[in-house]
């Protein structure tokens, strides 16, 4: 029982990061029908910002907002430079464009920085733990869960209480009708990319704190996790994205602890197998989306 509770906390910590990544993917998908395979590059850029600023002796307290800011600005720049030019194109074109952006950003760091993995200092408290009864809880997991909860509450308030949020939800449901109501397509799409960048930036801070290193291909894993979690939750559903992230995180941790040691390294493979089974029985994901209409 104690082990299960321990796993649930660990899984929630991991799942929280996936939830933020998936929510960012889902926000953009909702308004543009774009499955953004360049989403992980927001973390890559943040990673290099961390590398250079930490290397210059700056503290994590200053670096953290810089990582988030860099993710937001990169997301907006990607929209401006690449995706705004293919707005209204086929899903396939959008998908190819997102792959293109992913490879271009990776190549820039590969060519002009380094192909090797570059380490940087992690915050000292990342590996600290504290005990609650029999449970040994990482400060890091506590911080991730708390920040994710605050971020999700803030995002919910933004979406529910503001005209921008309402416009974004309306556009995600039916973009053409939202435009007919006077919703500005540029505002809502750029806003979606900014929000997506903000969420990726927050997730990226924790991802990078744990990783303690960066490389040109560092964005691939967080991108895969975010996209997978969004698919599990039901592409286009914001609520589903959060659920998908938490489910994926919990599944990974629970499987890793339950599988025999000899096959523990196959955890990811088993997770993918379970996801494949899910899609056989529920191809729409955990949450059904009725009104995702492409731009």
């Amino acid at each position, binding site marked *: 029982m104690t082990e299960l509770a321990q796993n649930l906390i660990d899984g929630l910590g991991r799942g929280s990061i996936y939830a933020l990544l998936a929510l960012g993917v889902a926000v953009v998908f909702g308004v543009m029908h774009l499955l953004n395979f360049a989403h992980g590059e927001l973390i890559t850029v943040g990673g290099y910002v961390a590398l250079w600023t930490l290397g210059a002796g700056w503290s994590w307290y200053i670096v953290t907002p810089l990582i988030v800011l860099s993710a937001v600005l990169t997301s907006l720049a990607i929209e401006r430079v690449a995706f705004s030019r293919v707005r209204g194109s086929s899903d396939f074109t959008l998908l190819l464009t997102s792959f293109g952006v992913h490879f271009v950003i990776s190549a820039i760091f590969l060519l002009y920085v380094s192909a090797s993995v570059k380490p940087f200092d992690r915050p000292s408290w990342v590996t600290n733990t504290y005990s609650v009864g029999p449970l040994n809880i990482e400060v890091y997991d506590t911080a991730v869960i708390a920040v994710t909860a605050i971020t999700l509450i803030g995002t919910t308030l933004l979406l529910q209480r503001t*005209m921008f949020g*309402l416009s974004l939800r309306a556009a995600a449901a039916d973009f053409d009708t939202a435009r007919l109501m*006077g919703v500005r397509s540029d505002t809502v799409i750029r806003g979606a990319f900014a929000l997506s960048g903000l969420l990726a930036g927050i997730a990226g801070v924790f991802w990078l704190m744990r990783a303690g290193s960066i490389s040109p291909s560092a964005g691939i894993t967080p991108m895969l996790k975010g996209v997978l979690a969004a698919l599990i939750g039901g592409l286009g559903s914001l609520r589903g994205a959060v659920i998908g992230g938490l489910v994926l995180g919990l599944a990974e941790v629970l499987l890793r602890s339950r599988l025999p040691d000899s096959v523990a390294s196959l955890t990811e493979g088993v997770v993918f197998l379970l996801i494949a089974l899910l899609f056989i029985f529920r191809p729409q994901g955990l949450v059904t989306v009725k*009104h995702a209409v492409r731009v």
Partner: protein
Amino acid sequence: MLEVEGLTVRYGSIAALRGATLSVGSGEVVGLIGPNGAGKTTMLSSIAGLLSPAEGRVTLEGQDITGRSPEQLLRSGVALVPEHRRIFADLTVEENLRIGGVTVPAAKRAELLDEMAERFAVLREKWDVPAGYLSGGEAQQLAIGRALMAAPRLLMMDEPSLGLAPVLVDLVFELIGTLRDQGRTLLVVEQNAARMLEVSDRAYVLRSGEVVASGTGQQLSQRDDLFDTFVGSVVAPVEGSPVTGAHAPHGSGGGAA
């Protein structure tokens, strides 16, 4: 108020509108009727900025609004209640109305929300209910209320009675009548030609993308040629009309659009 001059709209090589011309005066209710494929929805979509005309000009109170985006047109005072209502099913009634007022200042939006709550009692009762749970008639009222939230000078409606039960069709035409009595300017595309002619000050008949007739409801109702050729079964004889025969009754809601 609204002048449409020689509007031509093409879908590829097919002309859906061929030099169509019409006008709507301030405070007028103007109907646009005709058979399926006549170009009625194309006309509204072009005025609303959803389609770009190949030729022609649209002016609103003398100002050229041809080719403006839907957002710009809404800010100019032209709102559209789209065909099939297209309400946001996952948003609440109140949110649907609020999004309709996205182009008006916040204080004015709050005033308009209160006005809609007063005008549409049935919506007020379901203020926080997702709009997907509304009946067809309620959803149509919501669609009209949502368009009114933009405080439009010209309100256009595309097939407001489409797919509604006869009793709800009555409700929709009552609402159009109420808006007319309040001095609103309306341009309404309607499949139910007989009912539309009853509530409109004037109407245009479209056929194959061309305006083939116009006049008051009484004038158009009495033209047998339009009856048989263009409008068909949906035009029922209005009181006093010499036309009789096997046509659908008032409020049938069926027939050609």
